[in-house]
């Protein structure tokens, strides 16, 4: 608490308004140019010039190399698979001067030459990322030179390359540690995400393009989003008809899947950790098996067990409980949608309860024993103690988990895809009765090649999870006191 009080004014001093910060940045920038040595001034145009001026040759050379590399890429526009990088990529980003090329393959119905629009968009974004990097390095190189100026002014020697390297292990350790992740995540997570968001504003729908006999797509603004609400466009009818039902079921699924597994897990943990119970370890092991066995195995096992020819249906038929096999999982279009929905929630309990059990076992042991003692002295019943002590304690401690598992369930792909495949399906529609937004997204993009529609669904999924996170997570103690809570 004490540290918090002393920290408070410092935080306030840091909190400048956005325009103020921009203003400060500009004035600092101008100051650097005016105050800086000749080298620093030159650095604004030639990377590393300031470092050469201060005889930091290695560093200057590295900066120069980066500038030369990026500029060469921008000017000479090397191309991969016939699609260029560089300034041409920026031009291509408009998707205007594109051509189908001449080589139409009648067998596949596709063009084998001509513009590759998806690569144009992708490389356009890569080029933008490179321009951003260019300016970041530009700023860094000026700052580096300016720092040497300042060092000179106070009579210190500018740092040598070896000293800079050594500083990477100490003061700038975070730079060393974060660089691999920054590069890898930018290339393989952030860029692909931006790329897919961009596709939501295009006509990139492989089926439409095949019908039109073209390999090209264009920007079409918010048309795909409008299709969700009005039903325009080729896939619009499907999207419009199925969007709200799928959205509703996604929510119902997430709520039930989260709550059943959560409370089921707590109860199971209480049962297993009951005082005097023998064979705790054995019981735990049995339940943990479903956590340990890969989901595609366990869920496919259940799917076949409950299938048309599986043992469960034949047992029910032998017992005379049903005349024909029951379609538990909606694998045929005629199967009951309601039954399939109930079944996936129940089967999900089978997978999810042991997980919560594992997690809450430790938390249950941490509940102070004297709480129970006091309650017992007051004559409280076991049930009452559960609702008044155990449950509030566990819920308090695991609220972040509850939120993250809710979001996890909105994005829960395996349980639906492996069990029902989204069925029962509606003829003519992609999204079946148990499809969640994510499984629908998968079908639409991977099976249909309708990338723009898939991207729209993905953006909606993001908006939902982001809203939930913003409302709950940012309010939580763990986030707001993240700094002090150590």
């Amino acid at each position, binding site marked *: 608490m004490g540290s918090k009080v002393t920290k408070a004014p410092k935080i306030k001093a840091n909190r400048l308004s956005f325009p103020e910060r921009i203003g400060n940045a500009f004035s600092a920038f101008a100051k650097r140019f005016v105050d800086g040595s000749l080298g620093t001034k030159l650095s604004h145009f030639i990377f590393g010039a300031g470092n050469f001026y201060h005889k930091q040759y290695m560093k200057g050379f590295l900066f120069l190399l980066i500038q030369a590399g990026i500029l060469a890429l921008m000017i000479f526009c090397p191309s991969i698979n016939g699609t260029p990088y560089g300034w041409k990529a920026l031009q291509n980003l408009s998707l205007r001067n594109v051509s189908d090329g001449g080589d139409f393959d009648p067998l596949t119905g596709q063009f084998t030459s001509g513009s590759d629009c998806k690569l144009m968009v992708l490389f356009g974004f890569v080029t933008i990322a490179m321009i951003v990097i260019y300016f970041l390095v530009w700023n860094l190189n000026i700052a580096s030179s300016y720092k040497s100026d300042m060092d000179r002014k106070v009579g210190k020697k500018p740092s040598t390359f070896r000293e800079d390297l050594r500083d990477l*292990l100490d003061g700038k350790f975070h730079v060393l540690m974060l660089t691999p992740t920054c590069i890898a995540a930018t290339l393989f997570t952030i860029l692909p*995400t931006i790329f897919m968001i961009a596709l939501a504003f295009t006509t990139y729908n492989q089926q439409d393009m095949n019908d039109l006999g073209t390999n090209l797509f264009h920007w079409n603004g918010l048309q795909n989003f409008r299709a969700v609400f009005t039903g325009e466009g080729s896939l619009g009818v499907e999207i419009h008809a199925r969007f709200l039902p799928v959205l509703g079921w996604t929510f119902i699924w997430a709520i039930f899947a989260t709550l059943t597994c959560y409370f089921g897990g707590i109860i199971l943990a209480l049962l297993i950790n009951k005082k005097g119970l023998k064979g705790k370890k054995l019981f735990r092991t049995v339940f943990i*098996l479903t956590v340990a066995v890969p989901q*595609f195995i366990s869920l496919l096992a259940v799917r076949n067990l409950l299938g048309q020819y599986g043992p469960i249906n034949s047992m029910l038929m032998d017992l005379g409980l049903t005349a024909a096999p029951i379609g538990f999982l909606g694998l045929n279009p005629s199967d009951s949608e309601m039954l399939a929905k109930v079944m996936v929630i129940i089967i999900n309990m089978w997978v999810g309860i042991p997980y919560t059990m594992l997690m809450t076992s430790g938390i249950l042991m941490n509940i102070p024993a004297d709480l129970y003692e006091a309650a017992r002295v007051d004559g409280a019943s076991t049930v009452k103690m559960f609702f008044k002590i155990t449950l509030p304690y566990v819920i308090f401690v695991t609220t972040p988990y509850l939120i993250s598992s809710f979001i996890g369930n909105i994005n829960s792909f395996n349980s639906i895809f492996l069990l029902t495949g989204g069925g029962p399906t509606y003829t003519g529609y992609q999204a079946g009765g148990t499809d969640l937004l994510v499984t629908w997204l998968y079908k639409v993009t991977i099976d249909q090649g309708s990338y723009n529609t898939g991207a729209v669904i993905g953006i909606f999924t993001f908006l939902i999870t982001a809203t939930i996170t913003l409302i709950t997570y940012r309010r939580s103690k763990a986030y707001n006191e993240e700094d002090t809570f150590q």
Partner: protein
Amino acid sequence: MSTTKKKRVASQSRNRRVSLGVTYAILIVLGIIWLIPLVWIALSAFRCQYQPDGTFIGRVTSNFFPTGFGFKNFTDLITGTFYGVPKAFPRWMLNTLIIAAVDCVISTFLVLSVAYCMSKLRFKLRKPFMNLSMVIGLFPSFMSMIAIYFLLKSIGLTGNPAHPEYSVIGLVLAYSAGAGLGFQVAKGFFDVIPNALVESAKLDGCTNFQIFRRIILPLAKPIIIYQALMSFTGPWMDFIFAKVIIGADNAAYWTVSVGLYSMLFGTHPDTNLFTQFAAGCVIVAIPIVTLFMFLQKYYVEGVTAGAVKG
């Protein structure tokens, strides 16, 4: 002791025995329910049933307990040709092992380095980095999956006719490149390590690197094992990413889960392959489950740390 009190104690202990008995009953029933599908898959793996005319029955049958046992499914699976690839199953196992091992090393390294920075170092871009990684994490991963495929294809790391084996590298990149953004659990663990420890080392003249090497890493064994376990088992469990990145027509470089999945649902699903599928499941599940059971303690520590701190 008064008789009433004695009676109360006696009735209490009887109550307790009854409730214990009920607990046992519930747990045993639940345990059986939990085991049935897994036991059934294991039984199917060893099933050797023939039709009257002598043909082998490999599809799902209505009997829970097989009428004949044998290792035919295992030998057929291991020596068999699938999708035109001779001895496909051992190849898939090897592919998965290589991918899992490399992914395990890269992912663990990335996660630990990011988590340490976020937890114990203070720098200007720390909060923005954390917020950005949270926002990116909220997009469904399937959304970027297809874009990653395009990207890898454009640099020849998948769907490369001259070098189909490069798609293995592509898949490793797809699995491990973004791993650093999933630092939250490890950060929660590092947060618990007292800052005083770091500060006193700093007073002794340790650099940040030395603090990381000599103080944090030795204390971080549980979280290292947790991260390594998660990233090693990932490729054995995932099939969607592997299926999309490696591609349907590149069967020699599939991972084992894609291969097994395709036996039931692939481009040429064969319902008569169910028992071989089950045999494959047993072969995959045994090492994974064993690993899991041995490292259970660390797994629980990891999920609890992640859940409580968020």
